[in-house]
């Protein structure tokens, strides 16, 4: 007859190590009309692949109804998303083994940071100051990992950088710094 595989000896189970790092693959922010406002990729993918993923995923999420849960399986990833931030959807793709609730809070923390920095942030802020949104994200998440979870410290770092630019005098055209190429004599 069949081997009885009903053995409950779990000593025998291979508890092999999963990918234990919260491995965020990418984060997307998009509007209800499906326009991408921010895209941060933590895995190497070609342009074409990125576009395809963004398109497909945005459609999938926009099709979800309000009462559904914040997680879904998509391809072989777990998608964690929040849709209640004004007109924006925030969505992260993590690996299937990752901690979903903490990812939700990563999204929330990022929104808090944007909010503090811009003062009641709205979609327009992110549109017109997109580069700042990326800088803030980098201070908080590096390589897809939360590096600094103190809100104060992150904001302090951004503000310091902002102040830094104000200290450096505006350089006039004539004194424009030589480019690397110029320095090595190639132009």
């Amino acid at each position, binding site marked *: *007859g069949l*081997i009885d*595989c*009903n053995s*409950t000896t*779990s*000593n*025998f*189970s*291979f*508890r*092999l*190590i999963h990918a*234990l*790092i*919260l491995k965020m693959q990418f984060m997307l922010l998009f509007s209800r009309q499906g326009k991408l406002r921010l895209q941060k990729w933590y895995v*190497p993918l070609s*342009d074409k692949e990125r*576009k395809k993923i963004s398109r497909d995923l945005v459609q999938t999420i926009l099709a979800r109804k309000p*009462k*559904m849960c914040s*997680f*879904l399986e998509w391809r*072989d990833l777990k998608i964690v998303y929040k849709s209640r931030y004004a007109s924006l959807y925030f969505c992260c793709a993590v*690996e*299937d*083994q990752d*901690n*979903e*609730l*903490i990812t*939700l*809070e990563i999204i929330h*923390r990022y929104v808090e940071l944007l909010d503090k920095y811009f*003062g009641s942030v709205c979609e327009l*802020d992110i549109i*017109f*100051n997109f*580069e*700042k949104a990326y*800088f803030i994200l*980098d201070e908080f998440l*590096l390589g897809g*990992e*939360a*590096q600094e*979870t103190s809100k104060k*410290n992150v904001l302090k*770092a951004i503000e310091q*950088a902002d102040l*830094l*630019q*104000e200290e450096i005098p*505006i*350089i006039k055209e004539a004194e*424009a*710094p030589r*480019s*690397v190429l110029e*320095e090595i004599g190639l132009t």
Partner: protein
Amino acid sequence: MPAVSKGDGMRGLAVFISDIRNCKSKEAEVKRINKELANIRSKFKGDKALDGYSKKKYVCKLLFIFLLGHDIDFGHMEAVNLLSSNKYTEKQIGYLFISVLVNSNSELIRLINNAIKNDLASRNATFMNLALHCIANVGSREMAEAFASDIPRILVAGDTMDSVKQSAALCLLRLNRTSPDLVPMGEWTARVVHLLNDQHLGVVTAATSLITTLAQKSPDDFKTSVSLAVARLSRIVTSASIDLQDYTYYFVAAPWLSVKLLRLLQCYPPPEDASLRSRLSECLETILNKAQEPPKSKKVQHSNAKNAVLFEAIALIIHHDSEPNLLVRACNQLGQFLQHRETNLRYLALESMCTLASSEFSHEAVKTHIETVISALKTERDVSVRQRAVDLLYAMCDRSNSKQIVAEMLSYLETADYSIREEIVLKVAILAEKYAVDYTWYVDTILNLIRIAGDYVSEEVWYRVIQIVINRDDVQGYAAKTVFEALQAPACHENLVKVGGYILGEFGNLIAGDPRSSPLVQFNLLHSKFHLCSVPTRALLLSAYIKFINLFPEVKGTIQDVLRSDSQLRNADVELQQRAVEYLRLSCIASTDILATVLEEMPPFPERESSILAKLKKKKGSSKLPDMDDSRKNVNGSAEHAEDAEVASKTPQFLLEELISTDRPHPSSSATMLPTRTMVPSHTFTDNLSVNSAPSSGASLLVDVFSDFSSAAPTESSDEHFPRFVCKNNGVIYENQLLQIGLKSEYRQNLGRMYVFYGNKTSTQFQSFSTSVSSNDVLCSHILCSAPQLPAE
């Protein structure tokens, strides 16, 4: 609007963005963009050298255009130029551009790496961070080659600022992911472990992530982090909310750090040191206790953060699988969540319970929730949640509840989402086979599957039912009767015709006595479906017809007429035509004896591993599959290597087992054995390696370890596990940080079979892995050992 003044706000950029937003159509947008691109191109090519501000503005515009979705094929040079500016914002934009538009031009790469090198050496924390962020964002091989050895130094240097340490740690983590062979272990590893004790919690957070990833590569180097992690976690969990100040998130103490520490601990088995182990258990108990306390805040952020830590703690408890009371408590906690108002928590509870279901300590506890899970399957609105319920039912299935679970899954299948039907079909097929005591139930289940979701019943499934029917005499009559009845339905799925055709062809004689299922009736029934079927099915039916000729001489004439018809003999399809011609000829010229020999009943199929399980694993990809068959995959990519050694008698140590009757119920005996090996060969897994898997380079490390291992006498290292095998047939016989060896044996009368399983616990592949079986001289002749050479992967 911005609270802090941004200095140079790049007015030109803002105007451009406004213009784009005001475009009424896609064409207008493209037109405006092209105009701008032409403008920028001419500025870049112009004679006048651009000042930093302008360059920055144009590079930023290009970036914006790119992020809108248009292709950009210039600007890289200018962006690289910006890197050498000593104005912070210009550098920043330059770095942003090159991180987003990664270019593989080698000259550019050289320049970029140069700029990074300068910034790293600048001793200016802000510049260093910019450079480190860039490396972490791009993480290319060239950058790894240039910087992988510098970054550890920066990380552990005494004078490095905290913020730089954080960036360096995560930068190194990224490089290790993409180019693990270029990140060398060294003296610095001990100092990284020490960072777990740092004052600055941000540093601890980053270091924990780094250690977790490195510990998978070289677990021994970071063993000492376990006690530090437990200590840290303990302090956090027992702290008052004011202690951690800004690291408290909505009244939860350092949730991110707690989660990371709990993950780090999942890299290692339970601590050997008793006091450390009990400290950790206390910690986990505290976390479980907190879940029962009334919440400190109504905000969802509070409960999410608190529960995130809770779920991770449960994951650790499951991973250790050693404290029964913790496991049961975890199970109960999850049981509570199963009925929580919040969908997210119900989803996560279902998911988490799947892994709990495979632990022997909590398997029974999980089963107690079966009604809740079934009700979730029926009432949950969100299909993702229903899917988790299906997964959990699959995981908790055992002999005691298999009939109930299969019935529920079948009824769910009737209304299930099309995208998930195939998976459910595979699961039902696996469960039905695995837990069939009465094979009539199995046959019914598969036929039901075909009826309900015929399109999703893949070949593996219906091949299997036929194999099983062929191999089991006791169910053949039942199968014939049942397919006969099922085929009466006016519209039946083609897969049913296939199965029915085959079975009636083989066993139609068993029901031919009844006038309602006489040979002619059977033939007419099959033939009535003939014209509705695809070519492969028709081919199968033709084979069934010739078998009928053999079984039932009385219908020979009728069938020959059919074969003789033009639609068969001149069928456009070559296969059908050939079969019709040959079968017709065969029926004419062969004597009864020859015909009977040619069309003898199908012999039993040789035992094979279940291909259905393999197909299911391939389908699920690298995602977790509940530990149904005592096998789990390492998501990082190393496969489990399986091998079996047939042992006719055993080495002295195991002789005792033969005398002790095993407590496993044996299914009703049958003439032939059809064991299904439950280990899947390694090649199915390697198809699903994650995107970033890099070629193994830890080989040199491992080879040394193994040469030590193989030279040691076999009995030495595994004594502790041997006594277990006095009473049990299955279990782990040897385990260290790298390797786990398990044994599974079964015995019948004077024959025994022993499977030896080797599990790779690291994240890198073993190379040149080989095994051997040796035993005393006396017993040597009785051992048939088949140890297939493992593929060189």
